[in-house]
């Protein structure tokens, strides 16, 4: 069983295995419990690049295309927010891949579009700095 805290807009703020998350609760936020383990819940959506996940990657500009692997077990589609662009990906056996170009310097920030369903943290977000 995990404890989940939602922001006032319903998006997931955080979750933990601690049975009561009231200490991290701010005015207007809500708490709910989910019958899952922390590991299971955090693996519902995983974004990775070159086997790395949950960290900021730095790659040189013009170093070739990057492939981001998307794992979302049990789902047939997933909507991701790539900077300000929303992209819905079809999933095959819960997996998909995205291609990112490195021709321009800047930052790619990928996160779930539906933050009421997926917490935009940990392995569900991926930041890639093209420098």
């Amino acid at each position, binding site marked *: 069983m995990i404890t989940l805290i939602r922001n006032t807009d319903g998006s997931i703020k955080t979750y933990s295995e601690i049975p009561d998350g009231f200490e991290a609760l701010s005015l207007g936020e809500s708490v709910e419990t989910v019958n899952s383990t922390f590991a299971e819940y955090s693996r519902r959506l995983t974004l990775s690049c070159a086997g790395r996940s949950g960290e900021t990657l730095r790659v040189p500009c013009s170093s070739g295309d990057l492939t981001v692997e998307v794992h979302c077990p049990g789902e047939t589609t997933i909507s991701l927010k790539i900077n300000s*662009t929303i992209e819905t990906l079809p999933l095959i056996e819960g997996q998909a891949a*995205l291609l990112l170009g490195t*021709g*321009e310097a*800047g930052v*790619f920030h990928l996160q779930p579009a539906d933050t009421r369903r997926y917490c935009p943290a940990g392995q569900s977000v991926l930041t890639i700095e093209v420098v």
Partner: protein
Amino acid sequence: MAAVTKSNGKFTLQPDPLLAARARSAQDKSSLDKGISESELRALLASNLLRLEHLEQE
């Protein structure tokens, strides 16, 4: 955050005007060594004002 566009299945970052202005700084400086047109001068000022605005915000 830079805008992203999708073309032929690939996502690419749109050039960030600030990063482009910063990358052009040496070129801007050397442009003062020769005669420049009014349009070049406007571009130089716009580039420097952009960098200054962001510097003030940091």
